[in-house]
Structure formats: structure tokens, C-alpha cells
């Protein structure tokens, strides 16, 4: 295990700076996967998006938005839970969650970066995308939310939050001589732990917490609006898309956070710093989010089935019986199974890490499938004009690019863990009292 072998005489905590063979293999593996993703993407750049399985709607019967957009939705959804947990635990003084606040922030930053990268990858003209958004972006378009609020707002805010929140710890580790000392000093930015500094820090963190939650709710709701304002696609139009997006985001985000927390706990040798109470809290949150997500899934399906517009019914039919039925029922089953696992633990009041991780994996997969079902079938089936139904399933290029994105995310998180203490070195409990 990671902590088993020491590389140098470094005294940095939590294995920071110690690169074991396992870590090397991990980095190498992730770089290879990411590299392969990059290769697939470069093929896409040179030959055009023809190399993917995406095609036009209508006469071509394809899906112009494919796996990439599914992943954008998924990754940005995942980012939601992290920063919210961090901020909420700070504002509501949930002590049990304090140890994982940095994990949560890291998950947010990582998934946001990868998610926004997926946006760029999905553009026909990525560079023009950035330039023209700055020159001509229109707030009337929901993409304004993705680009301006998420990319220019939530991501920088999360980075600042992560940065400032770790500054105290940076000052602590910066005192240890190591190869990373320069980085840590830079991070500490002259923090000297005076009373005034502490006070300022707590104030800033409080106000950032207070500000960041509404920002992220607004920003991420626009992700739902991307679909919700579409009259042209059966199954999309509706005011529920915004909240629905958030609920599923919460479920998938918490599930991923739980898994990541469990991984970090193992990495740090099953440390007591991340105790059962952390998982209990996460389990409870996840239970609520997953229940709500399942509820939304069912409500949405029933609405579709009883919808007056025939196309909505056709779409429901396609989901229940048609070519997407297997994904649909698998996602419902996974979500329900995850929920049952959580309910059993809640009922017995015995929260165990193993079952929790399993439930998380189930729920996260269900959420991914649900994202897929939101994005794809409305493009290929039940179109308002009687085009013949089409089909879409991602091809290896798309899978490779997405695998590359996952690898990139894992790499980011892994590098962070090896560069900085992943658990807070100091408790921050006085925050609220001082504010």
C-alpha cells in the first residue's frame, strides 16, 4: 500500500511527496489512458467529428449531441456535491464532515475542469468557441450559464475556495524541507498564523461559502435549462429539468465523494481522521438525494406516459419498451438497488463503508445512465416531424476520449494528493463562532 514504503526522509504528513511504485504505476496508467484519449481526440480534430458516431437529427436519424454532452452533464453534476458539502459543513458547522472538506473541494475542481474540457471537445471549433463566447456570448442562451457562470464563475470560485481553505495547512507543510517546499511556500503566500490573519481567513471563507452555494445552484440549474427550454424535443421541455438536474447532480456527486473518501481513507491506512461518522453523514445525504432522484425519474416517466402530446408518449414507449429500454430499466434498477442498500443501513443504523461504496457505485452509474437517457433518446426518437427513428451509440473514439477525461481527472486528484495534504491538518471549528 501507498504508505508502506517511504522514498526519502521527508517528514511531510499523509504521504505527501512520497511516490511509491504503486503510485508510479497509477500515474503511468492514467497518462497512458489520457494519452490514448488525446490521440482519439486529435483524430477527431484532423478528420472532423465524422469519426465519432454522432450524426444529425432528422434525415440522418442521429444524435448531434452524444456521449460528450452526456459526460458534460455528468461531470458538472458531480462537481455540485463537493463544493456544496464543503460550504454547507462550514456554514452549518457539521464537524463530522470537516475532515473531508478538501476532498470535496478537490472533487469539485477536478470534475469541473474535466467537464468543461468535455464542452470544448464537443465543439466543432473549440478555439473559436472560447474567443467567440468572450466576444459575442448571449445571456439568452443557456450556454451562457455553462460558459460564463460555470467556467468563469464556479470554477474560479472553487479554485479560490480550495486555495484559501488550504492556506493555513500550506503554511504548516511549508516549514518542512522537501522538493515541494517552494510550492507550499507559494501556496502559503506569507501566511503567518497571526490572530488578524486567522480572523480574515475565517471571514473570507464564510462569505465565500455563503456566496458560492447560490452561485453554483444558479449555474448548474442552467445546465438543466439547456434541455428544459427546448420545445422541439419531446421529453425535454419542462420546468423540472433544472431541479431534476440538481437532484441527480447531488446524488452522483455525493456518491463519487463517498467513493473518493473511501479511497483516501484506504490510502492513508484506514486513518481514524475519516471515521464512521463521516460515512454516516454522507450516507444520509446520499439516501435523501438518491430517493429524490428516483422520485424524479418516476414522476418524469409518468408525466411522459400521460402527456397529451403524442410524441411524449412515443418517447416514453421508446424508453420503456424500445431500443433504450435496457438502459432505462438498468438505471432504475441500479438506482433502486443503491437506495435499498442505503435504506437497510439507515434502518439498522449500521453504516458500513463497503456497502456504502457499493451503493455509491450503483447510484453513480444509474445517474450516468440517466444523463444518457435525458440527452440521447429525444434526439433519435419521437421527433416532432415523422422522421424514421434513428439510432446512436458511442464508438471507440468517443469512449476513448471519455476514458481519457476520467484518467485526466484521476491524474489531477492523484497529483494533488501527492503534492498536498488531502486532509486538513488543523481544525477549523471556530469559524462560525467568529463570524
Amino acid at each position, binding site marked *: 500500500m501507498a504508505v508502506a514504503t517511504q522514498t526519502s526522509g521527508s517528514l511531510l504528513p499523509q504521504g505527501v511527496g512520497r511516490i511509491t511504485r504503486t503510485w508510479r504505476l497509477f500515474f503511468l496508467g492514467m497518462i497512458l489512458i489520457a494519452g490514448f484519449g488525446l490521440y482519439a481526440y486529435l483524430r477527431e480534430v484532423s*478528420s*472532423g*467529428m*465524422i469519426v465519432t458516431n*454522432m*450524426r*444529425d*437529427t*432528422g*434525415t*440522418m*436519424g442521429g444524435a*448531434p*449531441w452524444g456521449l460528450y454532452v452526456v459526460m458534460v452533464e455528468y461531470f458538472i453534476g458531480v462537481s455540485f456535491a463537493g463544493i456544496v458539502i464543503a460550504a454547507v459543513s462550514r456554514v452549518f458547522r457539521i464537524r463530522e464532515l470537516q475532515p473531508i472538506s478538501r476532498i470535496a473541494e478537490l472533487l469539485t475542481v477536478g470534475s469541473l475542469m474535466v467537464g468543461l474540457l468535455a464542452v470544448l471537445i*464537443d*465543439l*466543432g*471549433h*473549440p478555439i*473559436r*468557441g472560447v474567443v*467567440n*463566447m468572450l*466576444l*459575442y*456570448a*448571449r445571456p*439568452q*442562451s*443557456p*450556454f*451562457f450559464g455553462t*460558459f460564463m457562470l460555470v467556467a468563469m464563475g464556479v470554477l474560479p470560485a472553487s479554485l479560490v475556495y480550495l486555495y484559501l481553505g488550504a492556506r493555513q495547512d500550506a503554511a504548516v507543510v511549508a516549514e518542512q524541507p522537501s522538493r515541494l517546499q517552494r510550492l507550499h511556500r507559494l501556496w502559503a503566500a506569507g501566511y503567518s498564523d497571526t490572530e488578524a490573519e486567522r480572523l480574515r481567513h475565517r471571514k473570507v471563507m464564510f462569505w465565500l461559502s455563503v456566496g458560492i452555494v447560490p452561485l453554483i445552484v444558479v449555474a448548474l440549474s442552467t445546465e438543466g435549462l*439547456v434541455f428544459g*427550454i*427546448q*420545445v*422541439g*424535443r419531446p421529453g425535454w421541455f419542462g420546468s423540472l429539468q433544472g431541479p431534476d438536474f440538481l437532484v441527480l447532480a447531488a446524488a452522483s456527486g455525493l456518491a463519487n465523494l463517498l467513493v473518493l473518501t473511501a479511497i483516501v481513507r484506504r490510502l492513508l491506512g484506514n486513518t481514524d481522521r475519516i471515521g464512521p461518522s463521516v460515512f454516516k453523514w454522507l450516507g444520509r445525504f446520499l439516501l435523501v438525494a438518491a430517493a429524490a432522484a428516483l422520485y424524479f425519474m418516476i414522476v418524469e416517466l409518468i408525466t411522459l406516459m400521460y402527456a397529451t*402530446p*403524442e*410524441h411524449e408518449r*412515443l418517447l416514453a414507449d421508446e424508453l420503456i419498451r424500445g431500443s433504450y429500454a435496457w438502459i432505462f430499466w438498468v438505471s432504475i434498477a441500479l438506482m433502486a438497488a443503491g437506495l435499498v442498500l442505503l435504506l437497510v443501513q439507515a434502518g439498522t443504523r449500521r453504516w458500513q463503508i463497503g456497502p456504502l461504496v457499493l451503493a455509491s457505485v450503483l447510484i453513480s452509474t444509474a445517474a450516468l445512465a440517466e444523463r444518457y437517457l435525458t440527452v440521447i433518446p429525444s*434526439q433519435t426518437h*419521437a*421527433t*416532432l*416531424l*415523422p*422522421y*424514421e427513428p434513428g439510432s446512436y451509440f458511442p464508438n471507440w473514439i468517443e469512449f476513448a476520449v471519455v476514458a481519457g477525461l476520467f484518467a485526466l481527472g484521476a491524474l489531477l486528484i492523484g497529483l494533488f494528493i501527492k503534492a498536498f495534504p488531502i486532509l486538513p491538518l488543523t481544525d477549523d471549528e471556530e469559524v462560525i463562532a467568529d463570524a
Partner: protein
Amino acid sequence: MAKYSMVVDLDLCQGCRACTEACKIENNTGSGIFWMHVFRFEEGEYPETKMSFLPRPCQHCDNAPCVKVCPVGARFKREDGLVLTDFDRCIGCRYCELACPYGVNYFTWQSPEKSHYQDVVDWEDDDLALVTGGLVPPYKNPDLDLKYGEEQRYTAGGNHAKGVIEKCTFCVQRVEKGMNPACVETCPVNALIFGDTDSPDSPISHYLRVRQPWRLLEEAGTHPRVMYVGGKPPNPSLKEIERPKAEV
């Protein structure tokens, strides 16, 4: 200011798809792309079978969902009613394509040189190039490279670059010369009528005084500028037959 509209007379339409081909030549669109698609429908069981045709150009909606969602204003509505794409502005997000309930948008999935049926006809063939200079396609329309409208934006034609969206322009390059769109001009039975609905003397205005038009997916609230007379609105029980090979 002129307000351009199109009327499609389904009592006349023979479903021949001459409009489709005229559009493709005029606008140099690539293989698998049908700015003007003509549905051929069958419904009912033998022998109570009925057939119908439905030409589907871009509807040039007054309340165009594609214009609303475009993040960079590449898709815009002109004052004369034309809904156009500035392919020099488009970032290739395909949001307009998703927003459009009519399925009229086409993305340039690959480079234009490759999408002109080059798998079976080599337009850059040496002997042909002696005459065409290797142009792809050899019938390349130079009008499409010009800027149009008061805005002077690159909006004409299709298939200019990899990774942008394209769709029916009502042949802006012809309309600005006072000509009909290519589809209207070629229709063997004059089932397509194009003109200025603001001018009471235009043929289209005369037409609309006599015939009661309906619009595609009226309930979507898009207010299309393309109107249909005769026939009836499509419904999900129609089965599309004789689909063109829409592959890129």
C-alpha cells in the same frame, strides 16, 4: 422592408425532389445533406392506403428556437425574415440543431473536400482538373463566398468548413439578386411560391388571399414563415417511405 415567405402547395407537390437537387447544386451542400428534404409518406392498411408528400425547407421561424439558443449569435434572424447562419461565427456546438423541432440543421462532420461524393467521383481527377482546376465540387458556386445583407456576414451556401452548422438560407445569394430560391425556381409543378408577404401585389400575397395556409407544428409557437396549403399536417401515424441515403 420586404418580408419573405414561402408557400408550399401540397395539392400540387409530386414529391419528385427536384427542389432537393436544385438546392444541393445551388448551395454546394455535401453528400447526405438535405436542406430541402421532401418526405414521402404512406399511411393506412391496404387497400385503404393513402400517400402524401411534404417538402421541408428551413421554416425561417419568426420565433426561431435556434436563434434563441445560439450562444454566440451565429444564428440570427434578418429583418426580411430570413433566418441565417454566420458560418464565420459559428462555434459548432449544434445547439440550434437540437432546438429546432423541424430537423433542418446539418453539421459539417468532415472537411468539405471529402463530403462531395468523393468516395465515388474524384473531382480532383487530373484530366478533369484541366477544365475545373480541381474545384470541389466542380460546379462550385462563387456567389457563396460573398457577404450578404446589411450586416455583411458570411451566410450563403453550405459546406464551407469543417465543424460548423449549416441549413437552408432561402438562397440568400439569389434573393438578394431578386431571384427565387433554387427550389422554387425548379419545381416542375410550381408547388413552391416565394415572395414578399408585405407587398399586397406579390404572387405569394395573392395566393394567400385565396388559400388558407397552415404551418408545421403550429403548437410549438415558432411562427414559421413557411406556410402550407392543401394536404394536412403530419402526424406520427405516417410512415416515411423512400428515404434518401442520408449518410456522411
